[in-house]
């Protein structure tokens, strides 16, 4: 391919690609994100290829492998364009039917359609699926229209127009002004205003200036950055190009964790393609602006996502945060002015330049504009990636998009902000979700993890779980984080084992504040949050553990006993069959019993009983 030498040539190429495509031609889009690949999508893709060959449909039907669509729980899935017919949990055997019936004859295959668990209604089209319907998918939504290995797909939907607009007529300062006016805030956790950071880096003394894309994504369960890099790598590149132009940087880095092989593969390919057509390298689109990107593969430590640790890691030193009281925008990577932004932050930039700051700022709330991608997991019917406008309520996310709590259980809390976020109780379900509101109640946006918990979740146990993660991820350099988080966890362990002491709650609160105040980096500086927020909102649960030696949610093994409710027991023997220690026994059709002497509290009987006859006390 020949190199593009001007914005005009880019526009011509986009038009040429579009002209060569028939919008009415059936296109089977199959999600090949990491989530769906884990369900065996690769085999299904092969089947589609073979079937298309077998029926000689190469010219009539297009097959596109795309990145993550977000509704990972329902994979493997396909969307058949142009109608956008949505099939989920498909198998290789379904492939011939999909082609013959749906693609060629327009028939809907009922068994592959999605059934809304709430209404039991069959849903044919992707845009009618409640999970998608209530979202605002400006950033992630493009994934479905793009084969990440195909730069033409991105160009066909107007890709790189934002860059072209910036380079043809906008001064770097004007680009920064636009990002400031849009009020874009960093999606990597802190919510720092992006435009200000760009401006500081631009104005800082020192050359060269670096820009970095933070794709370390260490939060357990979060994968929005992976999905963007995998599914739409050119979007991230375009954002970085616009940023580099605005900041005056000629060298960028993408720091991506090693556990993301597909993301690394797709972004590498995208960089090569962009170089080939002259969108990376020297004199981009004839503007005189030159920029290139290197990929750095991180070792996968959570703390390497922290800015100073990330710089150390790129420089080849061990990924430990440094206590430095100068801004990275002045002295970052190799002590040069450096602008670090998260993947999703970069992904928002082309939208702002393309559609303007006013349009962008009209989405969301006054101080948190645009959309945010959350990874919705836990005790919720629809799990996956959801993109919503800032300011949406938690209730809308949990009930309208997430479809509520499974098995008719009660909502108890939602944890936002990743491992060091906070647990938000029911009373705040109608609170708008944005940077400031979340911070007000002791939680945070973080990178967008959202874990829903039901009434069978013990909040002390939850706090303990997150603390354990953070304890293991602490680099160990500073005392409060290394020793303090460990000691807090040991206290929680004790409480869960029924050895809690009266003064523990006060001690935990005191330690939590001192760890926040004393830690070297934000890992320790936020690590006590799960404990502090659960104490704040679920204090009675801590007290039940400590004073009454009870776990109200029935989770902490040392504090519960299993017994049989004689009224409900039908004598079906299901409990006895699964009990590994013969503690649950009884004659068929007669009330069973649990021998507490033999019971190891594995909970197998509880899970096995269909009549709710096993009680946890």
């Amino acid at each position, binding site marked *: 391919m020949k190199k593009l030498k001007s914005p005009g040539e880019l526009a011509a190429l986009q038009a040429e690609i579009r002209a060569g495509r028939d919008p009415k031609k059936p296109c089977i889009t199959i999600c090949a994100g990491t989530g769906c690949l884990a369900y065996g999508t690769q085999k299904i893709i092969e089947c589609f290829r073979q079937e298309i060959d077998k029926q000689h449909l190469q010219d009539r039907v297009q097959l596109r492998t795309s990145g993550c669509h977000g509704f990972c729980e329902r994979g493997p899935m396909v969307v058949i364009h142009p109608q956008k017919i949505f099939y989920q949990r498909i198998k290789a055997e379904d492939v011939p039917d999909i082609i013959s019936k749906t693609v060629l004859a327009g028939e809907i295959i009922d068994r592959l359609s999605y059934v809304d668990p709430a209404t039991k209604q069959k849903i044919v089209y992707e845009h009618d699926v409640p999970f998608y319907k209530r979202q605002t998918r400006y950033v992630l939504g493009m994934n479905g229209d793009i084969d990440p290995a195909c730069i033409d797909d991105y160009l066909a939907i107007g890709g790189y127009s934002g860059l072209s607009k910036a380079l043809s007529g906008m001064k770097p300062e004007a680009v920064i002004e636009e990002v400031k006016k849009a009020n874009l805030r960093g999606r990597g956790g802190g919510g720092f205003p992006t435009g200000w950071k760009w401006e500081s880096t631009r104005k800082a003394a020192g050359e060269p200036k670096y820009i970095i894309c933070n794709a370390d994504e260490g939060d357990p369960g979060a994968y929005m950055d992976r999905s963007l890099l995998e599914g739409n790598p050119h979007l991230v590149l375009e954002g970085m190009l616009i940023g580099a132009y605005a900041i005056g940087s000629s060298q960028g880095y993408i720091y991506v964790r090693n556990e993301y092989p597909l993301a690394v593969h797709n972004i590498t390919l995208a960089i090569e393609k962009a170089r080939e057509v002259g969108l990376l390298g020297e004199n981009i689109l004839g503007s005189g602006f030159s920029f290139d990107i290197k990929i750095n593969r991180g070792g996968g430590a959570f703390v390497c996502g922290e800015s100073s640790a990330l710089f150390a890691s790129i420089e080849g030193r*061990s990924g430990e945060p440094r*206590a430095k009281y100068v801004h990275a925008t002045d002295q970052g990577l190799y002590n040069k002015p450096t602008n670090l932004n998260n993947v999703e932050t970069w992904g928002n930039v082309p939208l702002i330049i393309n559609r303007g700051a006013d349009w962008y700022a009209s989405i969301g709330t006054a101080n948190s504009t645009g959309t945010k991608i959350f990874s919705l997991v836990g005790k919720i019917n629809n799990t996956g990636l959801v993109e919503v406008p800032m300011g949406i309520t938690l209730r809308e996310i949990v009930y309208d998009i997430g479809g509520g709590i499974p098995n008719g259980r009660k909502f108890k809390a939602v944890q936002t902000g990743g491992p060091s976020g906070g647990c938000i109780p029911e009373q705040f379900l109608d609170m708008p979700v944005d940077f400031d509101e979340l911070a007000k109640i002791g939680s945070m946006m973080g990178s967008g993890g959202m874990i829903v918990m039901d009434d069978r979740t013990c909040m002390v146990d939850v706090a303990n779980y997150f603390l354990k993660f953070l304890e293991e991820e602490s680099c*160990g350099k500073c*005392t409060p984080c290394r*020793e*303090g988080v*460990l000691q807090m966890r040991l206290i929680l362990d004790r409480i869960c084992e029924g050895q809690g002491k009266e003064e523990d709650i006060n001690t935990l609160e005191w330690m939590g504040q001192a760890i926040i105040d004393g830690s070297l980096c934000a890992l320790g500086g936020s690590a006590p949050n799960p404990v502090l927020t659960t104490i704040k909102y679920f204090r009675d649960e801590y007290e039940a553990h400590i004073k009454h030696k009870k776990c109200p949610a029935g989770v902490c093994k040392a504090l519960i006993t299993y017994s049989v409710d004689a009224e409900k027991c039908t004598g079906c023997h299901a409990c006895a069959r699964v009990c590994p220690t013969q503690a649950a026994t009884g004659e068929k059709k007669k009330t069973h019993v649990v021998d507490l002497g033999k019971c190891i509290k594995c909970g197998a009987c509880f899970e096995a009983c269909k009549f709710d006859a096993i009680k946890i006390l």
Partner: protein
Amino acid sequence: MSDTVTLKINGRTITASAGSTLLAAAQSANIYIPNLCSNEELTPYGACRLCMVEIAHGKRTRMVASCIYEVAEGLEVQTVTERILNVRKLVIELLLARNPYHPRLLKISHELGVQASRFKEDVKGCILCGQCVRTCREVVGVAAIGFKGRGRTRTVATPFDKAPADCIACGSCAYICPVKVIPLEDKNNVRTIWKTEFPMAVCKKCGRPFAPEKQLAYFRKIANLPENHFDTCIQCR
């Protein structure tokens, strides 16, 4: 640019040389700030967090490590507030759980009014202040030891826990250690450090062992000295 700045520590106006740390400025004004990982000869590290102080930051205040934070014109610093004392008390209690006996730690805990640690003891001795690692690298110039592991498993160790190839047995690490937990033994003309034996050079005049052979070889090499330069000990020279 003037090479001194004026700042306020605990309300007192103090002049300090530009580029110095808050800790150094406070110390030269006889204002005491406890510290464990700081050492004037070494790069600031800021890990023990005992030296935390509060600086005015707009309407709010901000906690910073005084061993790293540099003085600035007009800066207002407090070295003893409740917030600071809480951090220091926590730190010393946590360190006492690793090392409940060293006088230096006991002295600091006494100053802070901490009687004993409430935390579960796991005696390791080493408080991970990193002075040994930095001394070896920055002063001696060999980097024979480093940190291993992360979080609670972090230790100071030799590469792969083997006999350290670069170690010259100078003993600077053991000397600098504020809580004296690096074993060093000289016996029968052999120095044992980092579980490795190093033969000592014997003075050709008085016959006494005076320094590890490896250390002398290292000095001869970096200073370009003749092979027989360290034949005799300092006293006999």
